[in-house]
């Protein structure tokens, strides 16, 4: 069974149709990249797969079920912009520990396995020295690593990353790439949006170009050489994006 099955997905925001008949599958152990210009529906597609947006038409299945009917903790999601209160009284370790909350039993302290998953995620994202620091005292890259660590600590069955490399330094990008490729090798399916085409072949096993519809789907180098992405960039620069 595929980890994700999207069929004829339409999502409409009032008068704007953000996605128009998107179809794709994602097998386990595959990293699928989504590229497209701003406003092309990349983040909307991730939110629909996460169950945060209901399809206007069509269907999304994760492990054969609608996303909202999955057991808690199945989907790990790192949004593009974390709309959180940076003065909220939590440290890096507290935020990473939240990854264990969906599966934690009421009235019981976190288990040894929970604590081990939290420690492992903090180590994997190289956050050990920052673990007790308040979240407001982090740089942008450190904040991004903290939210990725929370998703990893969750031990999800599917990882959704919305432009995780935007605004991070080269070292952070390298460590994220190394981490994601390791998770994919271990069988985790990863769906990720990006603007970084130069390293697409390193990040992904497969790439899709989205501009409300899927314009190309295949191996990263083949998709980039097909000119599908260059074509919409050209169109966007010349005519602006349709809204």
């Amino acid at each position, binding site marked *: 069974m595929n980890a994700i099955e999207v069929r004829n997905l339409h999502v409409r925001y009032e008068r704007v149709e953000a996605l128009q008949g998107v179809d794709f599958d994602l097998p386990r152990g595959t990293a699928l990249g989504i590229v497209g210009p701003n406003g092309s529906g990349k983040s909307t597609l991730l939110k629909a797969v996460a169950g945060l947006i209901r399809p206007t038409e069509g269907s999304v299945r994760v492990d054969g079920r609608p996303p909202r009917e999955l057991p808690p903790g199945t989907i790990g999601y790192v949004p593009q912009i974390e709309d959180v209160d940076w003065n909220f009284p939590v440290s890096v370790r507290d935020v990473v520990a939240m990854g264990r909350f*969906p599966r*934690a039993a009421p009235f019981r302290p976190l288990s040894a396995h929970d604590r081990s998953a939290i420690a492992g995620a903090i180590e994997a994202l190289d956050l050990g020295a920052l673990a007790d620091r308040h979240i407001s005292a982090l740089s942008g890259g450190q904040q991004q690593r903290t939210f990725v660590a929370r998703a990893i600590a969750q031990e999800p069955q599917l990882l959704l990353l919305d432009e995780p490399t935007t605004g991070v330094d080269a070292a952070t990008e390298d460590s994220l790439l190394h981490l994601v490729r390791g998770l994919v090798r271990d069988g985790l399916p990863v769906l990720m949006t990006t603007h970084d085409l130069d390293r697409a072949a390193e990040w992904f096993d497969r790439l899709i170009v989205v501009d409300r519809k899927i314009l190309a789907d295949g191996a990263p180098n083949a998709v980039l050489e097909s000119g599908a992405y260059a074509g919409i960039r050209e169109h966007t620069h010349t005519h602006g994006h349709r809204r």
Partner: protein
Amino acid sequence: MSDLLAPFQYDFMQRAFVAALVVGVLCSALGTYVVLRKLSFIGDGLAHASFAGIVIAYLRGANFYGGAAVATIVTALAIGFVHRRGRVSLDTSIGVLFTAAFALGIFLMSRSTRATVDLSNYLFGNILGVSSSDVAVVVGVGLGIAVVVGALWRPLLYTSFDPVVAEAAGIRAWFIDYALLVILALTIIVSVQLVGIVLVAALLVTPAAAAGQLTERFVPMMLLSCAFGIVSAIGGLYASYELHASSGATIVLLATLIFFAALAINARRRRRLVL
């Protein structure tokens, strides 16, 4: 020492002590979520919403607590529904619905031919007038809410901090939001008799706001808030007895003093960090 404890030789002071302790802990513990979710308006709103239920209960000769409970819980659920389904901010939803419930109470009262109900106890509270059965209700509701918060504290924390990611991870944020609104409604109902409609919002917000000045961690914030709530409730009750003043007003004034002390301590600490 015996002079200090003298007020507590009276039964009414013992009952007031227990009620103040429970309400002080309840309001200040839940207040942590209220402050972190930026819902300071909710205490004022739901307390005013209880007015419609009190008037209906009075006109039908029913129990005031029951009437207030029904009106407050219905308003709390309606606030959540309008916010989630109507694409209306929570703040706006509270503003629209609490004024509607309050107006309904005034409308019904204005059309009644019965004598106007004496609402001074509900507006300003009368902790010294609580009966044994009132104390039993306060303690029962307090224990029930402690069990619910004990079961839900992790999803409450996650959805307070990052509701979108919590929802994607499988936490039913809508259920947690409604659960919080209902336990807030129940807390406000039992608090109204102590400090009154006008001042209940202060007990929900001020101890937690003071705690937020002194710590950057959630659990210490909740514990400090509870400590400030207890000191305000018990200290205020004692001071009101000694000063022959309104108990509700004295409790809230003491909580406010603690808040400004915490504000000053935090400002001094920040100045030291800058230097």
